[in-house]
């Protein structure tokens, strides 16, 4: 399967001379690889490792055996996209996220889409992620998914698919920013040879997005980031983003609710909080409203939200929009809410709660990828073609026991990128998670997080399953629309 995958560097069919197999966006990287000595490359990779360790950039997968700190592998060969490829993707991403936001507003509002017969009401109301507390809330700008991470895969020159939508608390953007810092430090010669669009403005855009959705009309609403604490695997990212935005990084104990308002504890006394960028899951947000055993949340927080005194980002109950069975309805949502044809395709998906689709899935397990509807992190899934008969049989029992908990998709030949492995460079499968910001407007920084499966042939890119990351480069257009050398605006106005 790895043999027939589309390689983003070497699957070119025609260069200027007609025989070049290196695709145009990768020429600079290919040249760099060809003229850089293996010793220099080894030295650079060693420097990367030191850099990440010294900066304490860590990804502690839950359940790590010795302590909670390990670095996530970073591959120094960048993943490159031409401007027109990116332009196409970003249009599709904006469209998709706008539809998801419209769906969430509707799901917690009048549910027009159910009345129209497009999405069954049970898909929303029977969903374990449905948050009754969010019903009927009028959120600023009608935005629910303020930060969305949309996972994309590529299978051919022009074929991209959305693998899944992440609209709860998607993580990984800190690696986008840090990977770029590292690459600029370690391979400056590459940057001077190619025009790579910057990503460093993400934090400014994020803060602007968060401020734009405050209920209060203060010119500078007080925004804080709520983290579960430093034992969380993404803690580094929480601290990093709070730092970049210059806002307070809070744990539950730093906040309290008094008379329906949220305050933070400071040495000079309580200070009001307007917007909470929370990286704590719904169930732990408020021990009064949700799980009473949660120490991560703030008692009374959801009351303050319902009273319109504090906004919570991303909104409560977004899980109804990003599980793997709602996913199958997203193209219909785009048609229903926006009256447009979807730009980005879904992967064909069989839902095991549909009897005939269930039958097909059981008969074809060896060819399919089967996933839990609410699964994440590459766990609880079966990759048919790389599994043994016994593994397939065992998994079939899970599916028979709870068909509604599973969906299946064809095994996609994810594109590959050249990657450093062991002794040299070899193709490894990659995906892409761009981050879409929605406030009073929609913003995307060019690129996103490229995750790479470091094991040969593996299609599982999750960092908790041994995946690594790459810097993702979007090249500036060759003939910029602005002749003054300015980088074209990376912004699509929301409707």
């Amino acid at each position, binding site marked *: 399967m790895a043999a027939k995958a589309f390689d983003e560097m070497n699957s070119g069919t025609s260069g200027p001379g007609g025989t070049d197999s290196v695709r145009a966006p990768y020429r600079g990287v290919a040249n760099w690889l060809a003229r850089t000595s293996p010793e220099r490359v080894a030295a650079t990779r060693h420097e990367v490792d030191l850099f990440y*360790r*010294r*900066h*304490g950039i860590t990804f502690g997968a839950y359940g790590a055996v010795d302590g909670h700190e390990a670095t996530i592998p970073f591959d120094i060969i960048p993943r490159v996209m031409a401007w027109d490829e990116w332009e196409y993707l970003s249009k599709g991403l904006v469209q998709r996220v706008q539809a998801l936001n419209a769906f969430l507003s509707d799901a917690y509002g009048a549910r027009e889409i159910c009345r129209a017969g497009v999405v069954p009401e049970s898909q929303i109301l029977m969903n374990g992620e449905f948050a009754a507390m969010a019903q009927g809330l009028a959120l600023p700008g009608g935005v629910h998914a303020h930060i969305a991470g949309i996972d994309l895969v590529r299978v051919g020159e022009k074929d991209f698919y959305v693998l899944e939508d992440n609209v709860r608390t998607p993580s990984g953007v800190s690696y986008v920013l840090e990977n770029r810092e590292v690459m600029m430090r370690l391979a400056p010669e590459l940057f001077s040879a190619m025009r790579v669009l910057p990503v460093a403005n993400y934090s400014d855009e994020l803060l602007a997005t968060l401020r734009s959705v405050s209920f209060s009309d203060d010119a500078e609403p007080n925004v804080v980031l709520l983290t579960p604490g*430093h034992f969380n695997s993404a803690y*580094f990212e929480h*601290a*990093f983003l*709070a*730092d970049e935005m210059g806002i*307070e*990084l*809070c*744990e539950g*104990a*730093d906040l309290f609710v008094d008379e329906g308002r949220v305050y*933070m*504890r*400071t*040495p*000079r006394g309580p200070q009001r909080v307007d917007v909470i960028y929370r990286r704590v899951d719904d169930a732990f947000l408020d021990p009064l409203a949700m799980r009473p055993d949660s120490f991560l949340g703030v008692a009374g927080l959801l009351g303050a939200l319902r009273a319109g005194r504090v906004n919570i980002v991303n909104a409560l109950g977004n899980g109804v929009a990003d599980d793997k069975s709602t996913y199958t309805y997203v193209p219909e949502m785009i048609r229903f809410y926006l009256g447009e044809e979807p730009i980005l395709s879904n992967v064909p998906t069989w839902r095991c709660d549909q009897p005939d689709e269930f039958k097909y899935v059981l008969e074809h397990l060896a060819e399919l990828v089967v996933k839990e509807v609410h699964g994440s992190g590459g766990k609880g899934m079966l990759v048919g073609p790389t599994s043994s008969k016994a593994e397939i049989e065992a998994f079939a029992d899970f599916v028979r026991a709870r068909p509604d908990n599973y969906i299946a998709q064809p095994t996609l030949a994810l594109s590959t990128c050249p990657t450093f492995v062991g002794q040299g460079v070899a193709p490894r499968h990659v995906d892409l998670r761009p981050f879409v910001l929605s406030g009073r407007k929609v913003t995307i920084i060019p690129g996103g997080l490229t995750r790479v499966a470091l094991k040969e042939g593996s299609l599982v890119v999750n960092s908790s399953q041994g995946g690594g990351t790459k810097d993702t480069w979007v090249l500036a257009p060759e003939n910029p629309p602005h002749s003054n050398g300015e980088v074209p605006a990376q912004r699509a106005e929301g409707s």
Partner: protein
Amino acid sequence: MLSSTAKNLYWMGRYLQRAKSTARLIEATQRMALQSRGEEAAGVAAIFGMEDEFRQTQQQDGRLASLIDFLVLDEGNPSSIVSSIAAARSNAREERNNITVDVWESLNALWLELSSRLRADRATLDRGALIESVKKQAVMIFGAAQVTLLRDEAYHFLQLGAFLERADNTARIVDVKFHLLRPDGDPHADKTDYFAWSEVLACIGAVRTYRRIYRSALDPLKVAELMMLRRDVPRSVHHCLWMVDLNMRELADTYGTRGEADRMAGELHARMRYARVEKIFEIGLARFLGGVRDNISALSDEIGRQFLLD
């Protein structure tokens, strides 16, 4: 700034200073043991207020080497150098966004170095190099704080923690060492024990400072004066409590309010500023220092009440 941030920075200052003081003290004690009698372990344990803990550990042979391992390497001893650095680093890690990259990187580098040294076999572990490294790098970390941190609340809490810890450490050293060397409390009795007094000064790195200030042979009375009362000696109790008072005033100016902790800091500073060494020995050194140390501890509690999450 959050109260929890103030708390983390305060404790980061305390732990880092504790590791640094311990390193210096152990170095001085080892030299003292080489040059004189062999029963330093009990005295060192006393300085750390750990006679009981030390006796309870499996190392009951009373040897200095066992005690040093207890104070340097023992991860079960919350005040050991290794534990202190780990605690300081954990405080800093939670406040990555309130300290500079320079401070974080230097502290994290020290922690990484200690972790990798600890992975080595205990038999071949070079304790001397480890202690040296803690001393050197702690200076680098405080130096990084000095040159790179914004002079805001966070900085003052870090300083408060470091200077309160240092004041207490010096007061303890004077207290215990004088008790060991002059059990009768008379500072004039015997001036022959030159090496011992020089090593007492070495505990706070002030041997050359003594010569610069007094230009005379080592005199226990002057040693006590230097360590307690000289405002210009950066590790003296007076200097540290002066700095505590100064940082408290900066915070009071920032917040526009004063509380009981401000009063206590001012009182402690004044007590050191107007004390005379001869008078102290008249009252009794142990009694004087006992009072100062009680007040330092009460001030620390009151700071917790006034500003921090307790």
